[in-house]
């Protein structure tokens, strides 16, 4: 269920169809929205601009959710990084991880495996993780 710790919104019904629902049926669909909390992220203008122009926002939210699951004690921050040589740009999620080095490395591997399973290949180098261990 960890991956489902996000909100379920109302279904995608055209507004003109709402009147056709029995009230009980529609109330139940609305209740689904309340079953899971909404993931809320505050991003800098630079990160928001980078992600919206490249259609990465949803992938970034998914990645941040995975980071919190893999590094439960951390408060991830996000920045845009630009390679001065190649002018390549990407998003880096920074975390400060606590625990044994081997545990942190395992957590990073789990995170990367899950992220690569979800992200399209073309976007996989656009979201990266950097961590410090304390």
């Amino acid at each position, binding site marked *: *269920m960890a991956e489902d710790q996000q909100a379920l919104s109302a279904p995608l019904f055209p507004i003109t169809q709402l009147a056709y629902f029995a009230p009980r049926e529609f109330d139940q669909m609305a209740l*689904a929205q309340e079953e899971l909390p909404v993931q809320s992220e505050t991003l800098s203008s630079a990160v928001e601009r980078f992600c*919206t122009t490249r259609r990465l926002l949803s992938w970034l939210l998914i990645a941040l959710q995975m980071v919190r699951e893999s590094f439960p004690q951390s408060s991830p921050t996000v920045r845009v990084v630009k390679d001065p040589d190649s002018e390549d740009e990407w998003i880096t999620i920074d975390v400060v991880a606590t625990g044994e080095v081997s545990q942190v490395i395992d957590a990073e591997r789990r995170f990367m495996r899950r992220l690569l399973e979800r992200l399209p290949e073309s976007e996989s180098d656009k979201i990266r993780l950097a961590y410090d261990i304390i």
Partner: protein
Amino acid sequence: MPERKDTIMLFGNPTEVSEVPIAHSEERANEYELEDGSVIRFRAVATAVLRIDNQFDGEGNPLYLVKNGQVVTVVKAPDHLRKKKAP
């Protein structure tokens, strides 16, 4: 990407769904000017769309649920609300 089958809990009951990949998205922002002088931008972002298997609305359309997150960006904030820089 292929659809992915999953089971989620809805109303306390396990419910079979298919996660449908998003082929194209337009994520527009809402912008709000606050009384404290700040301007914030808000976006609702779908992170997954689930079609509930074998469930239909009154017109026979499939039922969809959207997993989503929200993104808030501070576009502008007055100086007195910003974190003070160390001297």
